[in-house]
């Protein structure tokens, strides 16, 4: 009597083998030489292969789409070339966590043999792949992950950033609030995870330096809190004159809506780091977001010629106005183009060296900025949510001046 489990196991083995063949078919040896494959062709001319690792699935998918659009827009406007290298882009899905992010970076480095990696939304992934880049001596241009360590405590010459650091964004708000009448009481809260802690630390440092007093703090559970009433009641009873907070994604939507529902919006003005009202969260927040003021290094309402052109061509091509994620990746292409004009070769060291020498990026949509410690030293803008002919936007209220990464 043939036992069923034998036939099932044969079926299983067959299915397993069939599934694994396509993956492991790529031949070549992974024992020779240190780290990834040998660097691709060098010298002037020829092609440069770029691995664009952005989220195409999971919670950050919308950010990934904005980034890819920013990248393709710049290439479209500049004949798809960096210097006189034609750009060949390989896109990989960063996903939501390092479990998918790190393999994606490994894939573009080891099997697609790219010269430069661009992208990464998740800070844990950016920090996690540092050793991959240093060992394969390839350059990574981070276009979002805001953890301070990436270009601070855990800096490596192979990782540069065209976005921001968490503390840099909130430090500008700290100084501003200290000078605008809220000195004697601000309540600060952010989710209980690394980025939240960094933002609050950056804010508190400059706010207290300006003589301000933080009257209360709270750390809602990250990713698990959907009812902020306990914290809102605490804010009301702490006697704070204003609230500073940091939330992104679905938490930003829920918090801002509940902030209005519990009546705090009219009595205690809400301030935050730019991501509270940036990109696709704003339309979901609706009128609850009206009047919320945030600081960020970009807004599609910025009044400078570079941004006007950028917003116009982006909206024409994609039917939506760009977010800071699109601008950050647009700039990544810009700085790589400048670097490859002077870089002698395509390996990490030469491009990194060239990047150090590109000086001010004066034609950036966010306004002129320069690299300082491998991350932008840039203007931070105070923005306020207003309704402009029917749609909610982050109108620029004031330029809070240049701010580098607080160390």
């Amino acid at each position: 009597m043939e036992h069923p489990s034998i036939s099932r196991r044969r079926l299983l083995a067959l299915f397993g083998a069939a599934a694994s063949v396509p993956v492991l078919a790529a031949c070549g040896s992974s024992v020779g030489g240190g780290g990834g494959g040998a660097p691709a062709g060098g010298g002037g001319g020829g092609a440069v292969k770029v691995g664009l690792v952005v989220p195409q699935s999971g919670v950050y998918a919308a950010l990934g789409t904005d980034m890819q659009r920013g990248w393709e827009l710049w290439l479209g406007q500049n004949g798809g070339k960096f210097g006189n290298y034609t750009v060949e882009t390989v896109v990989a899905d960063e996903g939501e966590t390092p479990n998918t992010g790190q393999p994606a970076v490994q894939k573009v480095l080891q099997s697609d043999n790219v010269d430069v990696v661009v992208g990464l939304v998740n800070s844990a992934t950016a920090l996690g792949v540092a050793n991959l880049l240093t060992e394969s001596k390839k350059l990574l241009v981070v276009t979002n992950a805001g953890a301070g360590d990436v270009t601070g405590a855990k800096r490596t010459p192979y990782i540069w950033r065209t976005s921001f650091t968490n503390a840099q964004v909130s430090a500008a708000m700290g100084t501003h609030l200290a000078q605008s009448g809220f000195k004697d009481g601000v309540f600060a809260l952010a989710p209980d995870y690394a980025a939240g802690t960094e933002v609050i630390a950056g804010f508190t440092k400059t706010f207290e330096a300006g003589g301000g007093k933080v009257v209360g703090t709270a750390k809602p559970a990250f990713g698990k809190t959907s009812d902020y009433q306990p914290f809102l009641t605490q804010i009301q009873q702490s006697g704070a004159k204003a609230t500073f907070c940091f939330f992104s994604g679905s938490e930003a939507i829920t918090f801002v809506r509940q902030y209005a529902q519990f009546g705090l919006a009219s009595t205690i003005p809400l301030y935050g780091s730019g991501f509270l009202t940036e990109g696709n969260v704003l339309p979901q927040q609706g009128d609850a977001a009206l009047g919320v003021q945030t600081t960020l290094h970009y807004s599609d309402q910025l009044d400078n010629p570079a941004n006007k052109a950028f917003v116009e061509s982006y909206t024409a091509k994609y039917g939506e106005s760009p977010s800071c994620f699109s601008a950050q990746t647009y700039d990544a292409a810009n700085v790589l183009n400048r670097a490859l004009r002077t870089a002698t070769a395509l390996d990490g060291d030469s491009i990194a060296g060239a990047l150090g020498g590109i000086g001010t990026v004066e034609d950036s949509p966010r306004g002129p900025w320069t690299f300082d410690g491998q991350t932008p030293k840039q203007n931070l803008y105070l923005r306020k949510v207003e309704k402009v002919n029917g749609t909610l936007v982050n109108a620029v209220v004031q330029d809070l001046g240049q701010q580098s990464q607080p160390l």
Partner: protein
Amino acid sequence: MLVSVLNGFSVGFLLFVLAVGLSIVFGMMDVLNLAHGALFLCGAYLGATFAGGWGGFLGALGLAAVFGLVGGGLLSLMTEPLRKRSHLDQALLTLGVALVAAEVLAIVFGDDPLSVAAPPGLNDSVQVFGVSYPTYRLVIIGVGAVLALAVYLVVERTRLGALVRATVADREMVSVLGVDNRLVKAAVFAIGSVLATTAGVLGGPIYGARPGLDATVLILALVVVVIGGLGSVRGALIGALIIGQVDIVGKYLLPDLSSFILFAALALVLVLRPQGLFGGPVGTAGAR
């Protein structure tokens, strides 16, 4: 402080509507329905798509009932062939269904988090204890209380309720009495699922709808069922209200420890009464 206690009730009642379906299905058929969270999320997305007017809200509730019945019936049908096998197989089956459902919802509704507007008239706030409190949540307390009463009456007072309780006590005996407990099981699965999708629509304006919400809500429902005890409506109600208070008032008193409050409460109950406050020794070493 008082508003936190009030809000604790609103969260508690919503949790009850969510958890009671899981508790009955598990208590009755020993099927741990890990797809319960996906049913909730389906309701939430229905609420999000039809948000706007009262027509939309009631339409969403109606559709949620339909999806709940279909979903419950389907799940009951799918677990039927596994009836002779261990309860673990049925739980694993629902885990597979939960994975598939979550991905299908992500494909259909996309990855962006959606916010859900409360129906007009309930979208504003009202002064309670000198602080403004969203009217919608007051309504949730009312609706939750009514649903709790309804479920309690159905289970305790009606013939179907008696049948459900009898099947929880001894499924073989019920089948000996000539009742085809496959129908009873399908009915309870359907009711449990309708409760889950309804909770999704009701929870929309508070929780919104986003990928990953199904796992968060499943954990919450499991905590309520573990603390409240399995298979008992009373346990689910008391468990949900306790969790509502512990979660909300706890976060108000200890804002910096809010990540741990829920799990600390769970650990406490597991240490003191492993079978939960009201549950019989269903899962533990009790005679089965």
